[in-house]
């Protein structure tokens, strides 16, 4: 039925002069997200963005993809026709017939929006004409201007656009309009959600994965790669770095107390992340920490971990319960992959009784037994882009 998707922007409109840049970013995202489809045209008609396809049967899949693009709030599957009253009438009737075949409809309302003031009939009059036409054609339908079963929208621009359904999408700001951040991506449930939430606010995401091969499997790499790919549907292209920190774990094991392992390792991870971020002009870090979820995520632990670097760390899920995080993970489609049973970094080296109230001077003292800079360099020498 539909050959076109009309795209409505959200908060972008609030951003005044930036509007153009923002719109451009969204259009860029749309193009890249739909690059797998042939015969797609993305264009603007009097301030509104449209996605046109020659293949009607691609429409559902296109909707699925576009739904995930940040910066868009509504999309409506539409029909594009010439600005000819008879043609508009016929296509509108066709659309209503189609909608009646899908659901039980008793009442309707026509709303016309005329951006093109050269079109000879005013909006209100045009709605009335169309309403009459529909009432004549469909005996069972009545007009209800307050609470109709369906709306019929007619948008007169350079072309005429007929639509009925408005689909709510994820909202947010276009990716790349709010700076960039490096996501510490483990194989778990929380970090992909954290990345999603920050990307939603317009941030370009890159990701960093720590592993301890051969203490972890190459399959774990594949799993993280897959998680990054799933996030890319929302965030656009994600550059994924991996760093092997086995040597760091070895050094900690040999020189430090077992219960300090997690905190020490996390401090190393932060330092490595900060280095990679700075080398690549990335503004901030993102973690999937949730307050109190595990030993390294108590407030005291967070203080000690964060103290190791100067860069701000965004923690969008810090106040969410595990079940709330899981719900988001399910909605964005990362949950099923996150729960696959390949060991991630933590499990092999996790101490039996990790510190939950570490003290900074104690941890700093433990680090004095380690060649911190040397170990970081060693780890960075294993840096790979997956």
């Amino acid at each position, binding site marked *: 039925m539909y050959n076109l998707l009309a795209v409505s922007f959200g908060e972008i409109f609030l951003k005044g002069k930036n509007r153009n840049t923002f719109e451009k970013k969204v259009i860029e995202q749309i193009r890249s997200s739909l690059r797998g489809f042939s015969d797609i045209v993305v264009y603007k008609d009097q301030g509104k963005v449209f996605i046109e396809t020659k293949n009607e049967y691609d429409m559902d899949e296109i909707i699925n993809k576009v739904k995930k693009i940040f910066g868009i709030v509504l999309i409506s599957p539409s029909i594009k026709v010439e600005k000819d009253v008879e043609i508009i009438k016929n296509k509108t009737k066709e659309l209503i017939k189609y909608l009646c075949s899908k659901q039980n409809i008793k009442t309707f309302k026509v709303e016309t929006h005329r951006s093109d003031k050269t079109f000879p009939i005013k909006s209100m009059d045009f709605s009335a004409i169309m309403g009459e036409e529909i009432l004549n054609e469909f005996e069972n339908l009545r007009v209800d201007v307050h609470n109709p079963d369906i709306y019929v929208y007619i948008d007169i621009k350079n072309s005429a656009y007929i639509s009925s359904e408005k689909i709510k999408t994820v909202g947010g700001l276009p990716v790349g309009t709010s700076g960039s951040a490096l996501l510490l991506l483990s194989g778990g449930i929380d970090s992909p959600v954290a990345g999603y939430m920050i990307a939603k606010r317009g941030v370009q995401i890159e990701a960093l994965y720590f592993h301890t*091969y*051969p*203490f*972890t*499997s*190459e399959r774990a790499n594949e799993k993280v790669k897959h998680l990054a790919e799933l996030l890319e549907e929302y965030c656009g292209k994600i550059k994924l770095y991996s760093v092997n920190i086995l040597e760091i*774990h*070895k050094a900690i094991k040999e020189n430090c107390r077992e219960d300090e392992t997690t905190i020490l390792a996390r401090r190393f991870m932060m330092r490595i992340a900060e280095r990679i971020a700075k080398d690549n002009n990335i503004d901030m870090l993102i973690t999937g920490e949730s307050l109190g979820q595990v030993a390294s995520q108590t407030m005291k632990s967070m203080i000690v971990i964060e103290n190791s670097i100067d860069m701000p760390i965004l923690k969008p899920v810090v106040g969410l319960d595990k079940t709330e995080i899981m719900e988001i993970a399910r909605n964005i489609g990362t949950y099923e992959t996150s729960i696959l*049973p390949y060991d991630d970094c933590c499990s*092999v080296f996790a101490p039996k009784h990790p510190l939950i109230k570490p003290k900074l001077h104690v941890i700093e003292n433990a680090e004095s037994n380690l060649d911190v800079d040397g170990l970081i360099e060693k780890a960075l020498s294993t840096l790979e882009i997956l």
Partner: protein
Amino acid sequence: MEIYLDNSATTKTRAEVMESIIDIYENNYGNPSSLHRMGMEIEKKIDWARKSVAKVINARTEEIYFTGGGTESNNIAILGYLSNFFISKCVDKTFNVITTKIEHPSVYNIFKQFESVLDVRYLDVDSSGKIEISELENRIDENTLLVSIMQVNNELGTVQDLDKIIEIVKSKNRRTKIHVDAIQAFGKMKVDTKKTLVDTMSFSSHKVHGPKGVGGLYVRSGYKINPIYFGASQEKGIRPGTENTAGIVGFGKACELICDNFQAETEKLYNLKKQYGMRLIQKIDDIKINSDLGRNSAPHILSISFKNIRGEVLVHYLERKGIYVSTGSACSSKVKSDNRILKSIGLNKEYVDGTIRISFGHYNSVDEIEYVVNTIKQSVNEIRMIMK
């Protein structure tokens, strides 16, 4: 360098087998059910393959059925027999079936399914993985429908005494049927179905350097089993569906190669197992060899446990050096669960986690031993240093 020591998981297809497979796809791609000459020609090739497979276990040609693999063979044998009772509805918990605690999942999980409708009896095994004949004897009675036992265990290489088992079963209840999962034994141990009177026996092509997706089922003449799914009359209706012709001929070729050189090949494998076992014991402390190093277990399987390491970590250490082994059994080792089989033989927990399986095949040689054993030693030392 690539040293493949995971031949119990699967094997490299032999070059001669590949040739015969390609030949079928290129020159004999007809459907055996077709009336015309092309159909007849491929039918003849399948008959040849059936003969070749039959020869390995000294069966009659018409006792061999081709299937889609070992798992399917086990399912057809067990479900195909028990369905007789379910169809006639004359089954309840007064009837029992017997198997062991160390069966492969393709047998074990069938019996698990039946626990709600039948009395399912699982036999214990001793520390070497063998069942106690006396326990078997005690648990068979006039209501035992089926005994299903694997000939060679896929993780340990333990061999069950089939002749003794059959003698006991048949002396206690003549009507009890015997199914043998011979997937790891086939082509590695001498099996003679004229002397070892099993009712059904399953085997698989890709464990013996044949192609994947083909298996075989031996069904003793005169014994009737039902299909488990339905279609036309291929494989006498027991396994309907157009034959995997190239796979079957490839399997036939692999079996021909087995028979050509059976004695020398198995001698080679026995020697490899012994050499590896001896060297590893000499070189590495806190080690347990779970397989018999002599003739009391299969020639190609060596299970070893190292104290205080993790098997999967050792597997990754070795893969870095081009050596491929497995932890536990490959078909189920991706699933994280306590190892049922290693627990059954009473292996201590600190050893269970550190267990790997080395399994040999046609392409292995004694020249590899030094490198592999040294690499294992280094890796185990390093892992122990880190995990201590």
